[in-house]
């Protein structure tokens, strides 16, 4: 890689700064690898996601990012990495998949250095032993390419489920339970690992793979770009964007695994679907006056059809 981007070890910063850093640097056209985490929890909505996906009753701060993916709950128990590269970088990838492979290579490298079986699950999840440990998203901002993601030190599926608007209260507990089965964390494998240690390990991986060097953070140079990004990401017209048909779309658990709700005369059906295997992993039906019924895969196979049966 030519002229490797500098690494900035920002560590704990206020929640909005964890988002304005990469938006602002992309706007400035500065290449960088930024490592940080928020000092308080918040919710980040995907670029095209309907605002209705956010459960405002959660009381969490919220913003909308300019890169893809869906709603995520973020807090101080996650270590973020932001990779900002020039679109015109000589020999740079020509597809989203290529950029993901490039930017996330050092992250997978770091996890493997910990002795774990880490792999990139395209488009943008990193799994350890088949369980999601990192979510990522990316896109083109101006003349820059941005890939951003997090490593889960610890994660509460309940808090994530509380942040997501869902069509039925039963779906909240199912969502949390499903995440619990498909996600893992660094501390589940190394209980004593700290955010600082992860940040140093990631920096070492980017140094080894790309030749990047750690640099002091030029906060004063960035201040105006970060302030401008903060205004844009919370501007009501941008933040509150809605979308027709919001509310019953699939809810992602990890790449290839979704919860899908479908309303029918016999109740609300909720299925956990593996799109890679085209299989209903589990399904539930909620019926007024009755407890939730777990339905076997065969009977719920109609949930796999695009129109929901």
């Amino acid at each position, binding site marked *: 890689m030519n002229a490797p981007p500098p690494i900035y070890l920002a560590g704990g910063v206020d929640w909005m700064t964890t988002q304005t850093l990469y938006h602002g640097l992309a706007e400035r056209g500065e290449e960088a690898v930024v490592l940080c985490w928020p000092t308080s929890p918040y919710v980040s909505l*995907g*670029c*095209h996601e309907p605002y209705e996906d956010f459960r405002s009753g959660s009381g969490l701060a919220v913003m909308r990012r*300019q*890169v*893809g*993916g869906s709603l995520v709950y973020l807090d101080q128990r996650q270590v973020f990495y932001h990779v900002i590269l020039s679109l015109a970088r000589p*020999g740079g990838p*020509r*597809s*989203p*998949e290529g*950029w*993901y492979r490039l930017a996330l290579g050092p992250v997978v490298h770091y996890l493997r250095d910990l002795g774990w079986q880490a792999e990139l699950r*395209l*488009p*943008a999840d990193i799994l350890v032993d088949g369980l999601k440990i990192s979510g*990522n*998203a*990316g*896109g*083109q901002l101006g003349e820059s390419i941005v890939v951003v993601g997090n490593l889960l030190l610890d994660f509460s599926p309940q808090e994530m489920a509380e942040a997501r608007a869902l069509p039925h209260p039963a779906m909240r507990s199912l969502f949390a339970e499903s995440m619990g089965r498909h996600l893992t964390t660094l501390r589940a494998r190394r209980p004593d690992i700290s955010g600082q240690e992860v940040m140093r390990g990631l920096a070492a991986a980017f140094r080894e793979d790309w030749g990047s060097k750690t640099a002091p953070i030029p906060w004063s140079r960035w201040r105006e770009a970060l302030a401008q990004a903060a205004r844009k990401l919370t501007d009501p017209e941008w933040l509150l964007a809605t979308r*027709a048909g919001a509310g019953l779309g699939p809810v992602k658990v990890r790449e290839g695994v979704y919860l899908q709700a479908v309303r029918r005369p016999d109740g609300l059906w909720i299925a956990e679907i593996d799109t890679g295997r085209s299989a209903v992993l589990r399904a539930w039906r909620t019926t007024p006056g009755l407890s939730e019924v777990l339905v076997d895969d065969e009977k719920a196979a109609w949930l796999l059809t695009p129109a929901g049966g």
Partner: protein
Amino acid sequence: MATQPASRWQVRDDFSYHPRHHWCREQADGVLMGVTDYTQERAGDILYVSLPVPGETVRAGEPMGSIESGKWVGQLYAPVSGVVVAVNERVAADPRLLNRDPYEAGWIAVIRPDAAGSLDALWDADRYRAALEEMAEDL
């Protein structure tokens, strides 16, 4: 590494092309535009599209909307400067139309150019094919 033939991407002879992989065609009410086969193929399944609003002024080479696939947001660029007079609501409702038929049913917008000869600066099909050949060598 084996290279991939540029001919894997369809290029229509009767269209003009912007270097950022958008096509254009003049019609009575303005310049019809969309994304090329290369764009849709590299993006993969397109899940969302954000279109400009009719009446909006756009500038050649600057973003006028976005598409999302696989958690990746790409930009839609205005190939010419002018005013958007129509957008394809079918694409907004069914973004995968861009994958299925990028040159016809998947058109994106009609732009009324603010100057005559606005397509002159764009590439013809042969030049665009040559650019794809160069890129294919890097893939």
